[in-house]
C-alpha cells in the first residue's frame, strides 16, 4: 500500500480527498463522471458515432432497432449519432460563452468594486438593467440581431451572463476590500494593483469558479432554447435544442425517440454540471465546508 499512501499525501491526492472525501462527495463524483462522459463523446464523436449525423442513413422516423439504437428522425438521420455530435456544439458554446462572459464581467467587477464611487454606481446600474431583463429574451434579441453561427450564439449567451459575474465579483470585492488583510496590505505600502491582484482577487476567485460551473449548465440550457426557437446553429449541424424542437413536431406520430434522446442529453449534462459545481463549492469555500 505505500503507493496509495504516497498518492494520498500528494497534492493531487489532497485535492481528490477534498473533492470527494466529504459526506456529499458522491454527488461531486457522479457530476464529474457525467461531464467526463460528455467530453469524451464530444472529442471522439467521429469514432463513436455509428453514422454521419447529417446524412440520410435509413428510412424516416424508424423506431430504435439494432441498426439505429436511438431510431431515426424525420429526414432518416441516425438519432444516436446526432446526440453524440450534439455534445460538441453544446460544450463548445457553453465554454465559449462562459469564457466571454467572465472575460467581460470579472475585470469590470473587480475594478468597479474596488474603485467604488460614481464609476461603480453607473456600471452597477447598467449591469442591473441587463440583469433585470429576462435572460432568454435578451439572448433571443441579440441572437436575432447577430444571426446564426457558433460565435454569435456564444456572444448572445455571454451578454446574458456577464452581469452575473459582474455582480458576484463586485459584491465580493466590496466586502473583501474592507477585510483587515487588505488594510494590512495598505499599511505595508502595497500599490493599488498589487492589492487588487494579490490580496483581493484570490479571495473572490472561489466564488467565481462556482458561478462559472453553474453558468455552464445554464448556458447549455439557453443554447438549447435558442436552437429550439430556430435562432441557434444553422441546420443541418447536429444540435440538441434544434433536434428537440424538430422531434416535437412528430410526437403525434408516436416518434418519441426523436424527442426523448436529445432531451435526455440536455438534462443529464446540465445535471452533471450542477452536481459538480455543488461539490466544487464545498471544496473551494472552506466556510461552507466547516459548517458541519
Amino acid at each position, binding site marked *: 500500500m505505500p503507493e496509495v499512501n504516497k498518492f494520498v499525501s500528494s497534492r493531487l491526492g489532497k485535492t481528490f480527498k477534498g473533492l470527494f472525501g466529504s459526506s456529499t462527495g458522491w454527488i461531486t463524483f457522479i457530476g464529474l463522471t457525467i461531464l467526463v462522459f460528455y467530453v469524451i463523446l464530444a472529442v471522439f464523436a467521429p469514432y463513436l458515432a455509428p453514422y454521419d449525423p447529417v446524412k440520410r442513413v435509413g428510412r424516416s422516423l424508424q423506431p430504435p432497432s439494432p441498426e439505429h439504437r436511438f431510431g431515426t428522425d424525420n429526414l432518416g438521420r441516425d438519432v444516436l449519432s446526432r446526440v453524440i455530435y450534439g455534445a460538441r456544439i453544446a460544450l463548445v458554446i457553453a465554454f465559449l460563452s462562459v469564457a466571454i462572459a467572465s472575460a467581460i464581467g470579472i475585470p469590470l467587477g473587480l475594478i468597479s468594486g474596488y474603485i467604488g464611487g460614481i464609476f461603480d454606481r453607473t456600471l452597477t446600474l447598467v449591469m442591473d438593467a441587463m440583469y433585470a431583463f429576462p435572460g432568454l429574451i435578451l439572448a433571443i434579441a441579440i441572437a436575432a440581431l447577430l444571426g446564426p453561427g457558433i460565435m454569435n450564439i456564444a456572444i448572445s449567451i455571454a451578454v446574458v451572463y456577464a452581469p452575473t459575474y459582474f455582480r458576484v465579483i463586485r459584491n465580493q470585492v466590496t466586502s473583501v476590500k474592507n*477585510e483587515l488583510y487588505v488594510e494590512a496590505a495598505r*499599511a*505595508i*505600502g502595497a500599490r493599488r494593483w498589487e492589492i487588487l491582484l*494579490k490580496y483581493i482577487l484570490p*479571495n473572490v476567485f472561489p466564488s467565481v469558479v462556482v458561478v462559472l460551473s453553474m453558468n455552464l449548465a445554464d448556458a447549455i440550457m439557453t443554447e438549447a432554447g435558442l436552437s429550439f426557437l430556430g435562432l441557434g446553429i444553422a441546420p443541418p449541424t447536429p444540435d440538441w435544442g434544434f433536434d428537440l424542437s424538430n422531434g416535437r413536431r412528430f410526437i403525434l406520430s408516436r416518434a418519441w425517440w426523436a424527442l426523448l434522446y436529445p432531451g435526455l442529453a440536455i438534462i443529464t449534462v446540465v445535471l452533471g454540471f450542477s452536481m459538480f459545481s455543488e461539490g466544487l463549492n464545498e471544496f473551494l469555500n472552506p466556510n461552507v465546508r466547516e459548517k458541519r
Partner: protein
Amino acid sequence: MAMVEVKDLKKYFPVRRTFIDAILGKPQLYVKAVDGVSFDIEEGEVLGLVGESGSGKTTTGRLVLRLIELTDGSVKIDGKDISKLDVEELRRFRRHIQLIFQDPMASLNPYMRIGDAVKHPLDIHNIGSPKDRKRMVLEMLERVNLTPPDEFYKRYPKELSGGQRQRVVIARALITKPKFVVADEAVAMLDVSIRSQLLKLLADLKKDFNLTMLFITHDLATTKYVCDRIAVMYLGKIVEIGSFEQIYRSPKHPYTKALISAVPEPDPKKKKEKFIPQGEVPNPINPPPGCRFHPRCPFAKDICKTKEPELKDVGDGQMVACHLY
C-alpha cells in the same frame, strides 16, 4: 526631538444624514472620535494608549499612521509631517511606519503563504536582493520563534494557531526595520497563556530592535511589561499621561483608578474594594459638557459639569486633566 510628535490631533467622522434631513437643513452631526490629542514618543520608547471601546484609541492609532485622514492637527514622525506627504511619498514612507493588528485571524491574506506575507513588504520597498529577502524572512521567522522557519515559510495562515499567526503579523511589521510601530490590541484576542508568550516576545523585540511603539490596549494589566509611559483616553481625549510607575502607583484621574480597579484579580482573598463607575461610555456625537467623565464620576463637582479640564502637570511629568487637582 522626539521620534513621534502628535499635536492636537482631531478626527471628526460625519454622521450620515438622511436625504430628507439634508433637505430640511438639519445640521451635519459629527462623531468626535479623537478630539485634541497630543503626545510625544521618544526613540526607543513605548507609549501605552489605554481606553475602552469608544475612547478613540484605535482611531488615534490609524491617524498617526495616516491609514485614515486627520481632520485637524499634525503628526510628525522622525521630523516628517506625514499629513503633508502625497500618495506616492506616503506609500514609500510606509516602510518606516508599521502596524500590528488586533485580529491575527483577519489580518493575514488566507491565500498567501506565511513566507510570502512576511516577504511582501521587502518586495514592495525593494529592500535587499531577492536572495537576501528570503534569508531575511527566515531570520525574522526564527526571531519570533516560528521554528523551524523554512517549515513555517511554506504554510498558509489557516494551518497556524492564533498565537502563531500573531507572531507572523509581528514579523511582517518588523521586517522593514521600521522607525515607528503601532500595536493595536496586539494580544487582546489571545488566551491568557498565549497572551503572556506574546507580551514576552514584544518586550524582547523592543530591546533588540530599540522599538519606538504606540501600544494600544483596553487592558491596563498588559501595559506593564512593555510600556515606558502610559496615556489613558476617554471619549476622544487623553485624561492622564505619565510614566508607567506613576500610573500604577499613584493614578490621579478617577477614570484611571477605575481602569486599574477593574482588572480581574486572581487572588480570592484580595477581594479589593472595587471602584467601578456606573453606566457606559456616552455617545461621542454629543459628549457631556465640561469634563466628559463627570456623569459617571463619583467625585464630580459643579465645575466639572461646565468647564473642561486641561491637562496639568501634577509633578514629575505626570499630566492629568481633572478639576480635582
